[in-house]
């Protein structure tokens, strides 16, 4: 889960990393009052979980409280790369002398964390790394040792950072470890003309798997782009909304991803990714189908299950339960293979719903689901029987 800039800033502050004074609001009037509290002149920054805010008009300088209110009014509600701006952060402007870049990222290949640091901060690190790779220092961190002052000194020296950044590097590592983050980034980390070190902007990505021991980040810190994603998350379903017309449900992340690809290969566009997981019960299947059928963009549904631990008869029971709970108005193509497949197919045969059809292969089922979605789109609505 990515945090908003203001949440990252709050974490930095908690761990003793110096940050400029700032406050957050969703109201232009409040923005004016905040600017007054911060001394008049402020930077107004859109709080969205995407980069490139400045270029998209999401960051403005205001000379006084009235200007802060105007800037907030211009930014709030704006769409930045598909993210609607719900809040702005107002921060005291800083007299910058030098900008640095520092981050701890997961190095998947090495199975450990890596410090990435550069004396050329303030811009996209990928661009710096591409143009002048020698300007970006990469230092592996031994997980058993972490970042001590000595290690931080090594990182700062390798990247040519100011010596005062060593303390920030140690504290930033503490943020990573204590918060179970998979990424912490400060860009830019600046030295002011007065010689102070300040984290001007930051990004923190938390590990979703660590939520059980990081209780403070409740689900309301998660921004769902789509209301159905919130519904699915509340039911514990692994669901991602996409922009096509064939609903896809399957068991296992790999198989569902593969199913999306096979549907796309048949010339249709998948409407979603929904993984009912391993050993799914009939209720999980019914819940999943309920979510997908309530998406108006869905024209047909493809249920693709290879029963390993999951029993195909439980999946079939779930489909039948969903048919009893919701009025099916969209055609459903089901492919069941593996554990208890014959029993599962028999359950669906016995129910004999006119809009439910079975297929024997994954490729064949995808083709059929794509044809049905296409036919449904052409006719406007699917004839209910």
């Amino acid at each position, binding site marked *: 889960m990515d945090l908003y800039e203001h949440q990252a800033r709050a974490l930095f502050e908690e761990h003793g990393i110096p940050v400029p004074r700032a406050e957050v609001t969703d109201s232009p009037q409040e923005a004016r009052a905040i600017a007054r509290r911060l001394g008049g002149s402020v930077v107004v920054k859109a709080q969205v979980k995407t980069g490139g805010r400045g270029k998209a008009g999401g960051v403005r300088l205001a000379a006084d409280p009235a200007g802060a209110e105007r800037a907030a009014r211009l930014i709030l509600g704006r769409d930045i790369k598909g993210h609607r701006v719900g809040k702005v952060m107002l921060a005291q402007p800083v007299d910058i002398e030098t900008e640095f870049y520092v981050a701890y990222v*997961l190095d*998947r*290949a090495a*199975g*450990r*964390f890596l410090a990435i640091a550069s004396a050329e901060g303030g811009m996209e690190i*990928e661009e710096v790394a591409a143009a002048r790779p020698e300007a970006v220092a990469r230092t592996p961190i*031994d*997980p*058993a040792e972490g970042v001590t002052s000595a290690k931080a000194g090594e990182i700062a020296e390798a990247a040519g950072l100011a010596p005062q950044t060593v303390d920030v590097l140690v504290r930033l590592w503490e943020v990573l*470890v204590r918060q*179970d983050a*998979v990424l912490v980034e400060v860009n830019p980390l600046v030295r002011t003309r007065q010689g102070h070190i300040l984290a001007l902007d930051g990004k923190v990505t938390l*590990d*979703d*798997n*660590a939520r*059980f*021991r990081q209780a403070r980040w409740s689900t309301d810190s998660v921004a769902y782009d789509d209301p159905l994603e919130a519904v699915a998350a509340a039911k514990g379903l*692994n669901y*991602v909304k*996409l922009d096509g017309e064939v609903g896809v449900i*399957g*068991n*296992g*992340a*790999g*198989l*569902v*991803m*593969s199913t*999306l*690809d*096979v*549907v*796309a*290969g048949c010339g249709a*566009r*998948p409407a979603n*990714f929904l*993984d009912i997981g*391993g050993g799914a019960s009939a209720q999980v299947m019914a819940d999943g189908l309920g979510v997908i059928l309530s998406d108006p963009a869905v024209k047909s549904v493809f249920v693709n299950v*290879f*029963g*390993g*631990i999951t029993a195909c008869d439980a999946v079939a029971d779930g489909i039948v339960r969903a048919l009893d709970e919701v009025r099916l108005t969209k055609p459903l193509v089901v492919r069941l*293979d*593996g*554990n208890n497949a014959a029993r599962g197919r028999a359950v669906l045969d016995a129910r004999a719903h006119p809009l439910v059809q079975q297929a024997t*292969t*994954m*490729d064949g089922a995808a083709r059929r689901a794509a044809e049905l979605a296409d036919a449904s789109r052409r006719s406007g609505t699917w004839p209910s029987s």
Partner: protein
Amino acid sequence: MAIFLTKESRVLVQGMTGGEGMKHTRRMLAAGTHVVGGVNPRKAGQSVDFDDRVVPVFGSVADGMRATGADVTVVFVPPAFAKAAVVEAADAGIGLAVVITEGIPVHDCVAFTSYAKKKGTRIVGPNCPGLITPGQSNAGIIPADITRSGRVGLVSKSGTLTYQLMYELRDIGFSTCVGIGGDPVVGTTHIDCLAAFQDDPDTELIVLIGEIGGDAEERAAAYIREHVTKPVVGYIAGFTAPEGRTMGHAGAIVSGSAGTAQAKKAALEAVGVKVGNTPTETARLVLALLDTVREAPQA
């Protein structure tokens, strides 16, 4: 011969007395695995009756190894306790720890994979279905009855795609199938399995299944070019995945231009690996290649 797991393997199950542990221990026993004990510090000295088999419970991995000569452990303990379980197994000096548990924090994975490496313990997983040498032994949750012993080696990030390919190629059969898991940090990589299959006289052809996220498949491609002479058939899932969204597996995410299925497929094809567009087509490529391998005159 198979890789990592044979009929001689003696298997402990950490978390055997839990719900998942019980269910899958029963399945492993049915598949012929020598499950020699469970581990649960609170239930040491007890035993569990699986149909007609009685499996003792030990208080620690070390005790279990001393009493039974176990060389493999399968870990079913919940995420919060998984790190301690793996560290305990590595401290006991076990050769192979198969970590089935899903949802382990990545900081814990970094810690225990690095620790196990220092101790000389191979980790398979986490968040994986384990590995199976059909007809010999099954350590994990892969269904044993969908295929049989044969000469194809399979390595995969995805559990269900492993099953799908095993099923499609059930008439051919497999030397060993290894599910390495879909987390960002895993103990055993595609490359580790490629190296082992290359050296395994029972493996004639290798199937490599990858998915979006990271660059493990690209690195595997580079390894194949330098070190693998056996034919390799690939499959990559996630061509339609949008950028920045995690697709089920914690590691399955396209970040900017990195980690795309297209790039992985291209990297594999560039070193001569045939890559299928669907699991079924991938199975067909395997069949076609096996024919040519078999028709080639033996040296």
